[in-house]
């Protein structure tokens, strides 16, 4: 009982459940995970909604995000200030959007944000180059990169302005056969997260709620 009381109030948990795709247990686990990253900064007690943010370095060094080539972008896209510092709210938000139950449209919005490196609301050539370099660890030659970027724009750019607007992106990605799966993966990924690293830590507390 005590454990449950000290982290969130019931109203908070209900509110989180309304705002995200998570169950109560998952939210508690997320909190555990969040708290674990910086035990001396993040309080256990979240009933008063403390204003705590974790820097991007901590978040992207989580074992699960570590291997992701777009880790910085993912975190930045979800941070309130755009610099990648995540409050707990942002943290929950991130995983909610990435979750399996989140609809395609919502995911496409955030996927667009992730790939839009310079945050100008368009995926332009430089964004594509960055994406490609991250995906291949800069193992392609400059000509190859240009070729691929040109091809991508040629394929997906509907209005012919040389960059991908959100509509282009959505149109393209919603037709991808792997899109669903790709998004599912995001979910699984995040699920894995709780289970791997939060279980031992929180289980006695969770058992009670």
């Amino acid at each position, binding site marked *: 009982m005590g454990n449950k009381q000290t982290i969130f109030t019931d109203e908070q948990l209900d509110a989180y459940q309304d705002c995200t795709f998570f169950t109560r*247990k998952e939210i508690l686990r997320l909190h555990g995970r969040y708290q674990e990253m910086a035990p001396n900064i993040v309080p256990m007690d979240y009933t008063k909604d403390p204003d705590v943010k974790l820097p991007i370095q901590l978040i992207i060094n989580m074992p699960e995000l570590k291997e992701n080539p*777009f880790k910085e972008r993912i975190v930045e896209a979800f941070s309130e200030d755009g610099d990648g510092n995540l409050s707990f*709210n942002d943290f929950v938000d991130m995983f909610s959007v990435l979750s399996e139950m989140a609809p395609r*449209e*919502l995911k496409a919005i955030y996927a667009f944000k992730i790939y839009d490196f310079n945050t100008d609301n368009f995926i332009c050539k430089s964004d594509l180059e960055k994406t*490609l370099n991250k*995906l291949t660890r800069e193992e392609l030659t400059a000509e190859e990169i240009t070729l691929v970027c040109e091809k991508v724009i040629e394929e997906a750019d509907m209005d012919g302005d040389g960059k991908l607007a959100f509509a282009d992106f959505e149109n393209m990605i919603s037709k991808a*056969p792997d899109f*669903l799966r790709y998004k599912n993966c995001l979910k699984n990924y995040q699920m894995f997260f709780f289970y*791997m690293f939060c279980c031992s830590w929180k289980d006695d507390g969770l058992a009670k709620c």
Partner: protein
Amino acid sequence: MCVYERELLVLIHNINFLFLSVPPTPHHDCEDEEESEKEKKVTAKTRRGNARGRARKDSEEEEETRTAGQRRQRNRRAQRKQAGNEDSDSDEESCKNKKNRANQISKQQEPNEDGEDDNKGGRKGRGKNETKQEKKPDEKGKKEKDNKKKKDKKKKGSSSSDSDSEEEPITEEELAKLKEEVEEKKKLIATLRNKPWQMKKKLDVLKEAQLFVEKFEGALGKGKGKKFYAYKVMMTKKWMKFQRDFENFKTACIPWEMKIKEIESHFGSSVASYFIFLRWMYGINMILFGLTFGLVMVPEVLMGKPYGTLPRKTVPRAEERTAMNFATLWDFSGLAQYSVLFYGYYNNQRTIGWLKFRMPLSYFLVGVGTIAYSYMVVIRTMARNANEEGGGDDTSFNFSWKMFTSWDYLIGNPETADNKFASITTSFKEAIVEEQENRKEENIHLTRFLRVLANFLALCTLAGSGYLIYFVVRRSQKFALEGLDNYGWWERNEVNMVMSLLGMFCPTLFDVISSLENYHPRIALRWQLGRIFALFLGNLYTFIIALMDEINLKLEEEKIVKYNMTIWEASLYNGTIPENATAPPIQVDPADVPRGPCWETMVGQEFVRLTISDTMTTYITIIIGDFLRAVFVRFFNYCWCWDLEYGFPSYSEFDISGNVLGLIFNQGMIWMGSFYAPGLPAINVFRLHTSMYLQCWAVMCCNVPHERVFKASRSNNFYMAMLLFILFLSTLPAVYTIVSIPPSFDCGPFSGKTRMFEVISETLENDFPSWFGKVFSYASNPGLILPFILLMVLSIYYLNATSKTYKEANLDLKKKLQSVRMP
């Protein structure tokens, strides 16, 4: 914040717009009272303003809202004049508007914040309002009647929630609007999680919406039905809560989630797809087990005649000595053969126990139900998967998809990530090369040659293994004819062993062969699956054919036994009958009664044995092939002359295709055998349970990620299709034996009948009124069934045709959409 201000402006515009179209309310004249009422209304305003304020900014104080509300009102009036609206009786409407405002806001928010810029959203919202206004009069008329009635109560309800009882008259439109508004808010709450907003904003909006709903929901009852309304609201809340709890409970109930996620992160989704399939299979088997266990085995144990009362329930005298030996039990004969695990144990008594449980009927229906349920589940899953896949046939985004969707987000392991990076790079390079359309030409002949060669080799292997099995089966029949007692362990288990060995080594061989072909791993996996499928299928059908031969042998044996039995009985009576014709039948120990060979139990035993040996082979393969190899590589690497870890033996990769097929064929065996061995699902559940743990452990501890990590996209339905095929193949022999072979005369629930399905007609005769039997006999007339089947075929044809046309229309529309978007 400027965004909010802009929003507000848009809002004000909308309200202005609204004025023009809302008809004045007849019995509510604000004009004179406006000033005097202002003070009173402030509280009401605060209420709504407050709610709205929270949507904007949490920090707004109550006082500020109040003044802000007044300011806004003034603003509005000024603007109205500026806009030159012809409404002179503006006060009345403004009065109304105050109440409308919250409504407008809630409507306004949605389009505004859907990620588009404010102006556009505003315009859209305005458009919405216009249409709404047109709709409103209809609604009003409908609601007018009951609104009048409930007005008083409403006032009470709303004022009671406030501390100071203000005299606020509420009109019908308002109520209707309020109601609409509450609905709107509720909808907002339900869809909040789908909004691409910051969490903070979501929380605030949620809080505001919840407060609003809570406050005004109570006021929305219908006259006398208010209590009922409140009750309904409460129940809805409770129901929601229950649903949420249930959802929580359900996710907590999914087993092995964590294990699978862990594997997923290490090996990518392709390996995990096997484990998910395994878990799904486990679920199905649990249900099959529940059916057979609950409806067949338990009733028989509880209510049937106990062991030793009947010949069929007793170990025969000759076997009594060895009945409890481990070797015998391991072979599922002896005591195990005469237990509820097998068909032969069941009695043909029509009803058992005080419940009058129809045992034979239940047995038959469970057998049929198992198969029907499996069909249903497999097909349903396939349909669902097919739905999810929908429309990914457009290949015009080759590079874009590679760019944006190729990363497998499950990967959390550096090694796998390295492999993934490498494979993405390769795939890009391949695509570039293809794009440039050169260099490919010189290789194509070699590749083609290699592929043909590979297929030839694979065919040879298949043919060889087929012949080997045929040979072994013939040999074993010869052994069986001569009597097995003269032979050792190997001769007795030759068929099983050969099949297991083939199952173990042929996939490896295929793997080697497929490395010649140089396919993309996803396609290579398909080929591999197809080849192993053919191999297993051959094995399975040879096994079945051998089994059929054996059944025929047993049937002949049965005839002889039957004949001997009459002689034996006669001899028994001959000795004692002269004394008294009405003497009770002679008591013979059931173990001494001669009995027939009960082919059903034999079939069941064969399947159980096959399952067990299959399981054993899998486990031993895992332990030797994965674990010992890994141990060897790991520890001998220190003192070896070449690098074992990266050189020749290396660690093993997880063999997805082999494992999936093993699982599928095992399931086929269960489907075939479970009619004759009700204990088989139980054994299978146990097997799946242990193999889940063993394989999870093995894969995490001794396997390395695939060199070319690929996503297991859509192969799930491929597995399902194979499963369906196997299900079909395995129902064929089962149904054939049920329908066309007479059951044994002295064992099993159907003994004494000429065919097993006669149990149905027997039940119809005895347990249903006679007219029902008549109707049934008419219905089962071929004259009726044939047209019915014809109708079904036709309807399938029709549905198929329509679905095709729909698909075409869909494609057409897609093309049109494309061409519309293009310019």
